[in-house]
């Protein structure tokens, strides 16, 4: 039993760290640390730097550009990227669509889509949630009717992250409404976002940012060749994605970086003539979060070690999402608290060059991060999963 990284793993970590220090563009890093939103161009820029290095899709098989790293190295890589402030790349192409195609796609589909995903030519988004179907995803009602070599898709998706940037969307649609169970009769389609009949409407969130959208499908023609897996097997694909390696949902590296930054800010801010960091009430809150994070790092590594040993952990990995997002939210709350009364200010009325744009991001970010316990299977759904599959309730 040894909880430390091996010498080889430490050497690998140092290599990654050194590479990031040399290759992560300073202006992108500053944007991450300053909580500024990334443009599609910037995300693609970072994607291509990683692709150039051969590191953009570590988990893919080698023949498609994977690195051949084991799960420990993949974890170390993700953690270092998070810690260094690398832009968080959208998961929809490399982490979601890619593995689905590798598992269920035809050779033609793989040849057509995987290299474009790898190079960052196509951005993807995920067409899952609908106005009436959130946690109860199998109730979805977007319809795909067969018409010769095409499906005609009608319906609406919502909360679609980055649909406004995406070139493609992968969608769960109902191809058979007479199926016995709701899970049957769902199919998995890849749809070109430039298809006639698709319209995207932004959903403005309370933080003022643009990241999610409504996507409307009005008689959209999708070639049958864009269906992944058999007709009616969409739910199998969806379940595969849910169960797909989720070793980075806790985002330990990112939270560590934020914690360090939080301490720096709290050292500069003063309360009663002393640094806010020395205020017992504030510090105790921070320390509790830090202890949770230290424990979660070990929990995460325990799962990684299990997976390396060939014993894939089960539904208990849902706790990474639950605790990880609770920590992320708590950090945004403490950040907002550090700014004190000035956290209320989110923008200047006149174009005031002296306005503190960093402080102005803290409260909106607190608002924005409420999403983390809601998205990707709400934390209540994650608890249901553990209750059912781990505690056997």
């Amino acid at each position: 039993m040894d909880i430390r990284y091996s010498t080889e793993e430490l050497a690998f970590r140092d290599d990654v760290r050194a590479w990031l220090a040399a290759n992560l563009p300073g202006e992108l890093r500053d944007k991450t640390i300053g909580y500024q939103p990334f443009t599609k161009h910037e995300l693609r820029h970072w994607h291509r730097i990683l692709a150039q290095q051969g590191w953009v899709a570590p988990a893919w098989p080698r023949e498609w550009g994977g690195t051949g790293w084991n799960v420990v190295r993949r974890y170390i890589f993700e953690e270092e990227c998070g810690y260094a402030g690398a832009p968080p790349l959208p998961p929809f192409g490399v982490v979601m669509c890619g593995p689905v195609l590798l598992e269920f796609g035809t050779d033609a589909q793989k040849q057509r889509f995987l290299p474009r995903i790898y190079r960052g030519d196509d951005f993807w988004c995920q067409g899952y949630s609908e106005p009436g179907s959130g946690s109860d995803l199998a109730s979805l009602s977007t319809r795909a009717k067969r018409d010769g070599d095409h499906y005609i898709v009608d319906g609406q998706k919502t909360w679609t992250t980055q649909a406004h940037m995406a070139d493609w969307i992968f969608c769960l649609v109902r191809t058979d409404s007479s199926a016995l169970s709701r899970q049957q009769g769902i199919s998995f389609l890849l749809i070109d976002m430039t298809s006639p009949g698709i319209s995207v409407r932004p959903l403005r969130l309370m933080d003022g940012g643009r990241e999610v959208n409504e996507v409307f499908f009005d008689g959209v023609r999708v070639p049958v060749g864009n269906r992944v897996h058999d007709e009616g097997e969409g739910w199998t694909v969806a379940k595969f994605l849910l169960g797909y390696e989720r070793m980075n949902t806790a985002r330990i590296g990112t939270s560590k970086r934020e914690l360090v930054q939080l301490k720096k800010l709290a050292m500069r801010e003063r309360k009663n003539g002393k640094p806010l960091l020395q205020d017992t009430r504030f510090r105790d809150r921070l320390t509790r979060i830090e202890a949770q994070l230290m424990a979660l790092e070990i929990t995460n590594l325990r799962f990684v070690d299990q997976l390396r040993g060939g014993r894939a952990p089960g539904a208990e990995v849902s706790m990474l999402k639950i605790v990880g997002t609770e920590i992320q939210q708590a950090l945004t709350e403490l950040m907002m608290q550090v700014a004190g009364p000035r956290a209320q200010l989110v923008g200047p009325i006149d174009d005031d060059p002296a306005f503190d744009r960093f402080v102005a991001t803290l409260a909106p970010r607190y608002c924005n991060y409420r999403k983390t316990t809601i998205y990707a299977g709400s934390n209540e759904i994650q608890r249901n999963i553990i209750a059912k599959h781990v505690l056997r309730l």
Partner: protein
Amino acid sequence: MDFGYSDEQRQLADSIRRFVERHYDFEARRRILESPAGWSRDVWRTVSELGVLALPLPVACGGFGGGALDLMPFMNAVGEALIVEPFVATFVAARLVARSASAALRADLLGGVSDGRSAMAFAHAELGARYDVRRVETRARPTDAGYVIDGKKSVVAGAPCATHVIVSARLHGAVRDPDGLALFVVDVSAPGVSMRAFRTLDDSRAADVGFDDVRVVEAARLHAPADALVMIEDALDYGTALICAEAVGALRAANDATLEYTKTRRQFGVPIASFQALQHRLVDMFIECEQASSIALLACATVDSEADAVQRKRIVSAAKLRISEACRHVSQEAVQLHGGMGMSDEMKVSHTFRRLTVIAQQFGDVDHHLERFAACDDALLAAGRAAMQETRS
């Protein structure tokens, strides 16, 4: 990195499990508690025959040179079966002897520990000191032949069962001076040693120990390679890591009992575990236990690693505060979900509740460790060391 048990740990876990099945089920434990001594010498002897007492002792003294990680399976079992014999008290005292006594004293005392003849306790805390490790009023005055010790020690765990105590006393300096402390071995039958023994909430034994003109020879002083305070903090952190591992066993037992109870207890015609209001609470208890298990591992590995003292104290404090919170949360929920049955002395869960409540107070409560964590963290921050990134080195 390898989180699996070593062969030795697995063997130890197996033999402890067999021991508990044969000699320490709930009824056997009840008989021990009802005996006049309140603990069992037979149990002590049997455990020593399993090699557990020798496990952490230096090889030179007939031990196996094991660390806290090696003892972890045993400590888990102590927590699970609620073993009341004061093993941790002896382990802590033995650590002091092993690290600072003369070769003759080491051989004499540790030989007795190893073969189960002697039990020890560490008499350090004093009335009014709470968890302040520096606050020692007990005095040691040098004489021609050795020292005379005067003072009172408060709530010394395991003292009524001990053959020897290690006592801390002040050679010079004011009450909270970091310098001027010394450690002595005292035979409990020595003239001037008095003991007021108590039953504690968790059905174990402790005592206030008085030293009234107790004369010890020069050879009874432990000559630390470092300051006595450094040795004391090291030993207490070691004990803290061990009861963190014990807590994990007790938390797991509380969760197992609560799961089983809620699955069998029927109300409104169904098992109460079918209610989601209870399921999510059971999941949170599960998560608390897993997080506790992770950070207990970190604490045990840290006290074994000879990490520098500030980093060690910081990590052990994080572990103890996290685990104390878990103890409180899980024990309270376990009783609540058992309903009235959780209050009953007949149910093991009520005993586990009391042990978890005591663990949360022993070796420093949450507030103490929040304070100590912040102090150590500040020291690392001031030294410009990125404390966060290297938790495990």
